[in-house]
């Protein structure tokens, strides 16, 4: 039984900028102005943006290609360490360090993908756990490079150097706008990519890998490329996170961290919608800060919510929107693309 198909809107698929992208741009551009009036804090905004970058990149793998990686936190961590080490050892320039985080993580991802690209489903999940653990163990034990349990400390928030002007990113608000620019750029690129022939092929692989291979597409190459790209984006998010935290710590490479991103993307509805990961990140962080204020064990409640969701509405928030809310708003009547209800 295949996974649910991505929904898409024919009218918008070739556009670079669409209505939801504009809504995202406006909402997040004004966020620092009102986030404190609703009782939250500026740093939360930075965290949310970085996680959106991570989650969107991850969904290229989970939602678009149908490959459940349970080791993606390792690549987030490699990006953070690469950013820190590039800054300390090579050249303390923001663009260079971010590029280093992307390229190094992408390279690690490319090598890992060589071992994973011919696997699917549960075997892929198990092997990705093994790789995630390998990178975690190396990072935690190779103390000469990663400083082990202590982590890389004192990573600077490098200024954004545009040649003529140099903008500081010291304050959380300034760093927020740097992350905002990165996120919006990534959203536009990913939206275009996922609606390109490349993205369509990935969706087809998610639906029926064997059939795509029979048509003549080099399926392994596509899966390899999706994995590598997704790792590069995770590295970018990791680099930004190292800057936000002013350090790189081993906990971001654990299995729990990798599991968290799966949970977030799924709760949001990454299986059926491009915007699922964004919804998931917002829900997760709002839940963490609001539930967390009332109870120490907010993760228990979040986990229960997740279990109930998988049981009754595995398409997440985006699926609820599609099935329950969008039809009542009088939008276009979109048939539910869940394969159980269509003849296959």
């Amino acid at each position, binding site marked *: 039984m*295949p*996974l649910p198909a991505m929904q898409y809107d024919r009218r918008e698929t070739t556009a670079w900028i669409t209505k939801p992208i504009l809504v995202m741009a406006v909402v997040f551009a004004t966020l620092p102005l009102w986030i404190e009036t609703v009782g939250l804090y500026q740093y939360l905004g930075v965290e949310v943006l970085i996680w959106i970058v991570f989650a969107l990149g991850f969904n290229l793998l989970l939602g678009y290609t149908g490959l459940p990686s349970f080791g993606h936190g390792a690549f987030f961590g490699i990006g953070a360490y690469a950013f820190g080490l590039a800054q300390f050892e090579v050249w303390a320039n923001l663009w260079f360090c971010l590029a280093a985080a992307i390229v190094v993580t992408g390279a690690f991802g490319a090598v890992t993908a060589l071992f994973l690209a011919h696997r699917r*489903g549960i*075997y892929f999940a198990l092997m990705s756990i093994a790789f995630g653990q390998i990178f975690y*163990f190396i990072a935690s034990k190779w103390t000469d490079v990663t400083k082990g349990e202590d982590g890389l400390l004192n990573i600077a928030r490098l200024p954004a150097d545009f040649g003529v002007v140099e903008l500081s990113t010291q304050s959380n608000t300034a760093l927020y706008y740097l992350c905002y620019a990165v996120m919006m750029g990534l959203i536009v690129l990913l939206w275009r990519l996922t609606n390109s022939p490349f993205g369509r092929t990935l969706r087809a692989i998610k639906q029926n890998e064997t059939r795509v291979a029979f048509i003549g597409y080099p399926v392994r190459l596509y899966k390899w490329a999706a994995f590598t790209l997704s790792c590069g984006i995770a590295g970018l998010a990791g680099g930004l996170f190292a800057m936000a935290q002013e350090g790189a710590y081993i906990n971001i490479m654990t299995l729990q961290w990798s599991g968290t991103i799966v949970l977030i993307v799924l709760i949001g509805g990454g299986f059926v919608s491009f915007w699922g990961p964004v919804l998931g990140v917002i829900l997760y962080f709002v839940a963490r800060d609001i539930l967390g204020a009332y109870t120490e*064990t907010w993760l228990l409640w979040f986990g229960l919510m997740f279990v109930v969701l998988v*049981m009754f509405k595995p398409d997440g928030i985006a699926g609820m929107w599609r099935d329950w809310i969008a039809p009542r708003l009088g939008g276009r009547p979109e048939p539910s693309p869940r394969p159980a209800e269509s003849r296959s």
Partner: protein
Amino acid sequence: MLYDLIPHIINGLALGLLFALLALGFMLIIGVMEVINLAHGSLFALGAYVALAVMVPDGGLPFAFMEPYYALPDVPRYVIALIVGPLVVAAVGAGLELCLRRTYGQDPLYGLLLTFGAALVLEEGIREIWGSSEYYLPIPRGISGGFIAGDLIYSTYRIYAAIFAAAMIGLLWLFLNRTPYGAIIKAGAHDGEMVRALGHNLSRLRLFVFAFGAALAAIAGIIMAPIWGIRPVVGVDAVVPAFVVIVLGGVGSFWGAVSAGLLVGLVVGLTAAFATDWSLLSMYLLLLAVVTFRSRGLAGKASVLES
């Protein structure tokens, strides 16, 4: 040199047999329900915590009325812990199976995700009840300590653990291959629909197998507890080796899992002799080395999980 390695080899074999026991429960669940039970490690940890609560008064659940019970000598309390722990965990496993029913017939990924959520809930639940601090399960005096043979020191408990795990694996084999219940379970793993057509209650079989697999995890957890200590995160430390054993041995092969467990244990034990810090890494490298050349592991057959 080789002689000095004997205690490490014995420790490794004990570890490997426990991994194999854990992995066999995991594999029964994969076989009959086609679900990768990511909560298996949490059930392992829960078993250890329940045994702890049964063994000692300050093990997290202080019941005043149980005072006279805690005055019993340690051997009967240990035996009771070994029975109560798996029973409680089997009940939790049965509850989990009831939740899982909604995912049957869908992509196996949903079962994986549901049990991942369940693992999170169980771990946080354990934190809520017992806190995050580390406990050690006390063991009866007869099987603790060490002894000297030749001029090397052996841990008595590890030898006990190895024998116990080997006996459990043997009993499990007898149960699966020499009883009618075992035949039904194996048939259910082969073709659930046909088992149903023959008039057996498939839902009840699944409930039973899940509870049984959970109980095996709990037994492994209780035996492992004095070696590893009991922490909420111990579930992750346990579930990942179980995957490695399953993938390495090949899904669906009893002796594949046992030999993979022993192999993993030996590799971990021997690496620990030379480079303690890297002992757990060697297990993954072994997995990569084997799976690169034999993609279904040592003895695996094609299975539903590949689709």
